């Protein structure tokens, strides 16, 4: 009986590492200084063109809050002109901090949805942020925000031109920490992941402190361990603009196998 159990455990372990490879350790994060216009870009690719359901997630440690009525862009694929796809921003609206996701159905923003969540990210504390989009849902339930693995609800949505039921496939570059040439993020970021699927609450929570190298529906995975490469296998190599730096200050240390960290790891 013991032998059988051991065999099953061994098979399950092998299956996990095949289905869900993880990195050895989380060694670095990236520091973006807004005052020096620092950010990352990735060239437009099929994998970054999210046209339907998706999940954006990453760790963030804010250095300063956005100025009054100013925006800091987190993840963005929007040239603010004729190639508008999606954008996640943290901003100040008359003294209240908010997180909002813009989803453009048309490249010139004649049809889009925006969902805003009132949430103040703390300064100097690592926070895991995930936002999930179910594109076919009405705007009231289109997006859900998770902070440190805990749902913050659906936010307040606005539809323009009828609202987005798909996301435009534009050619704009993807930016981490900026939009067009401005609205820079003042923060450290780590383990940025883009999925073209709705990740469940359990998946988000269980994997927030795991570096995932590749998985089904994982479109991009930047560990930012002192490298610019994409671990998802989709070759979305980052370009560092204006010399952002890497820091050994990280939100979690290692990619600990599930048996040692949590029983909640969800197999793909």
């Amino acid at each position, binding site marked *: 009986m013991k032998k059988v159990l051991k065999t099953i455990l061994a098979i399950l372990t092998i299956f996990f590492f095949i289905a869900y490879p993880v990195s050895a350790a989380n060694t670095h994060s990236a520091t973006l200084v807004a005052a020096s216009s620092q950010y990352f870009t990735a060239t437009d690719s099929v994998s970054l063109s999210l046209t339907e359901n998706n999940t954006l997630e990453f760790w963030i440690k804010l250095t300063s809050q956005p100025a009054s009525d100013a925006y800091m862009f987190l993840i963005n694929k929007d040239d603010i002109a004729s190639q508008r796809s999606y954008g996640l921003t943290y901003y100040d609206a008359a003294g209240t901090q908010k997180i909002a996701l813009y989803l453009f159905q048309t490249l010139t923003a004649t049809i889009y949805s925006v969902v805003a969540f009132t949430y103040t990210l703390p300064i100097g504390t690592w926070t895991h942020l995930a936002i999930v989009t179910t594109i076919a849902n009405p705007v009231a339930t289109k997006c859900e925000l998770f902070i440190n693995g805990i749902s913050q609800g659906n936010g307040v949505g606005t539809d323009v031109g009828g609202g987005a039921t798909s996301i435009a496939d534009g050619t704009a570059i993807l930016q981490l920490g900026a939009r067009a040439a401005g609205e820079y993020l003042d923060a450290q970021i780590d383990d940025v992941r883009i999925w073209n699927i709705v990740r469940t609450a359990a998946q988000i929570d269980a994997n927030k402190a795991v570096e995932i190298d590749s998985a089904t529906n994982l479109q991009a995975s930047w560990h930012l361990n002192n490298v*610019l490469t994409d671990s998802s296998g989709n070759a979305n190599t980052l370009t560092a603009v204006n010399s952002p730096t890497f820091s050994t200050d990280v939100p979690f240390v290692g990619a600990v196998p599930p048996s040692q960290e949590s029983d909640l790891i969800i197999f793909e």
Partner: protein
Amino acid sequence: MWNKIKTQLKRFKKWIIGFLIGGIALAAGTIMLPSNEYKTINEIVSAENAYYAKYGKYLQVMLGNKLPHYETGTIKEKLGKNVPANIVIDVYETVGGENYQTKYKGYQIQYEDDTAYYSLGFGIQAKERTWTIPKPVPTPVPTASTTTL
């Protein structure tokens, strides 16, 4: 005759001295105060390329002829002259090639006028960093409220 000239010279003495001093100052100003600012994009490109040849990196220049927090000194010291206040130079670095072992560096000069935003890219990403985005033509304010982007 001479007395007549002398009288006239005495009469316009102050004017003559004024013109002489002004002329000398103007000449000195022209010679001693050359332009401290690059006038064309080509000049800035040459300066950036010279800087790269010397230091192995391009120099970031922020709006208002300012350097980013990680640089010391002044733009004039580094590039030879100042850069016009409305010019932004972003520098970039990426990796490529076999096992991502090759580093690529480049830069992007941006400015705007009344009608458009302009960007000129240099280096491996020159093509994707070169663009012109026309500024939106002002339209009448809509009556229905919409969410600000």
